[in-house]
């Protein structure tokens, strides 16, 4: 997700919703270690530096943009999402989110084949602002290179990235 931040001064802090989510995710991780569940079943959300997230269940990843991204974009008025069956390479430009006057390119955090796009978001792009991690997911993708996940950021890494880049 290509969000630009230099003009969005109000977003210098990590949004509170993201902070609220953190304990939940950490807790999930802890649980998975203790009970020897496969990490895949309870895999935590992974992030890109471009503010996309991907949540993998089995071989299917659900992709969205982070709370930070939606906040920086402002009200999304149009979501252009990849069509099902399109094959994407990691970091392919695969759509765009339009907020007031700016079209921001959307990148796929992983390689694979798109299995579904969120039609509700196409109908009501404001869902991205209201619920970036749940109702505002963008598309689902069948991973062709699951190993790519290893190089993506985890929750703490993403948070650090935001801190280090001055947000």
């Amino acid at each position: 997700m290509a969000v630009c931040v230099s003009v969005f001064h109000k977003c210098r802090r990590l949004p509170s919703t993201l902070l609220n989510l953190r304990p939940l995710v950490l807790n999930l991780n802890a649980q998975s270690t203790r009970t020897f569940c496969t990490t895949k079943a309870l895999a935590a959300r992974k992030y890109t530096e471009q503010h996309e997230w991907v949540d993998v269940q089995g071989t299917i990843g659900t992709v969205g943009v982070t709370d930070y991204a939606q906040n920086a974009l402002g009200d999304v008025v149009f979501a252009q999402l990849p069509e099902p069956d399109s094959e994407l390479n990691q970091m392919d430009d695969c759509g765009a989110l339009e907020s007031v006057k700016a079209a921001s390119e959307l990148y796929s955090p992983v390689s694979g084949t798109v299995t579904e796009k969120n039609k509700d978001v196409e109908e009501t792009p404001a869902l991205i602002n209201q619920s970036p991690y749940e109702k505002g997911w963008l598309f689902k993708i069948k991973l062709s290179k699951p190993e790519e996940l290893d190089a993506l950021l985890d929750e703490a890494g993403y948070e650090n990235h935001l801190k280090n880049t001055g947000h």
Partner: protein
Amino acid sequence: MNVFRNSYLLLPYHRIKIRRLGNMNSYNPVSIIATRSITDDVSKKSVFVSKSTNIFENLALEDWFYKNFDFENQSLLFMWVNTPCVVIGRHQNPWLEVNLKNLSQNNVFLSRRNSGGGTVYHDQGNLNCSFFTSRVRYNRKSNLETICGSIRSHWNLNLTISPREDILFDSYKVSGTASKLGHRNAYHHCTLLVDVDSSLLHQMLNVHELGIQSNSTPSVRSPTMNLKACCPEISVDEVIHILGCYYIKNSPLCCQGFDFVTPSEENFPGLDLIKQSFSAWQWIYGKTPSFSVCCPIGDQSSEVKIQVLNGKIERLHFQDVTVGKQDALKLSTLLVNQKLDSELHDVISNGNVFGTMGEDRFSKLKEILLALCLTSV
């Protein structure tokens, strides 16, 4: 690569490093690498002015810069002027935004840009300014301030920036703004109404209501005015000169001169292909977000919904059973999977399908379909 008319002016400091960004699969970056590269000073600023007044060439060149230049340590102001044309935003619906009939009657081009935002009318009294930076240094407000500052410095006009980031004079809009943000690069471009033919502007943007339902990006209509109206001595050429100098002088380096560039394949390998895609029906009309149109049938108690995807009629939905199966089948055979273009226009107006169905009952449908098919490139 020979993009510079006065290239010797720039050589000492101005080596442009071209990095392949985006998905220009069709062209080989090796052929243009290493012509120049930019030094590591972020304050480096260049000004390019297009020698072309063709909207498709200029949009293609803008896109070429966006995809091929590395703006990490360098900024560019690209200025361009077009012959009469209407430019819609990336996710807009031309049937909702533009008077297609007036457009073709006046030989005005229609084009779709890559950035967001609303519809604008351009002619040679309008200056387009594209500010390129890295995504990190993208700053719309500062670009607009540069424009206002330069105009103020020379003509003493008090321009202000609205919360929507339009430039205003006395609450009238003199400039509209839109942006495109990518992974590494970004641009912000805006119009500047210097001496635009406002009667043509209104004719092009005065739309007949067709009853379209869509979630495409709507334009926000605002009262506009020309800078010429408050400052008779101003001209586009002078604004290019003043703004270009102001932009460069704001950097610690002094003015190195402008580059007047010709958007040609020879100068910018791969440009022809980009130009072709910008001029194609599939881009201008075909990229319209899906929409539907409801047409009354007969005494208006019944209606048919035309669903359009990628500029093609995807399906017809008859709201009730008052349209007989045979008529519904005839209409579907005639219309489904057809592009809303001049070919379908001819088929509808010259063919006899509507005649065989009782023209009166379907006259409104025919009228709306013919209006939808007024798409030319």
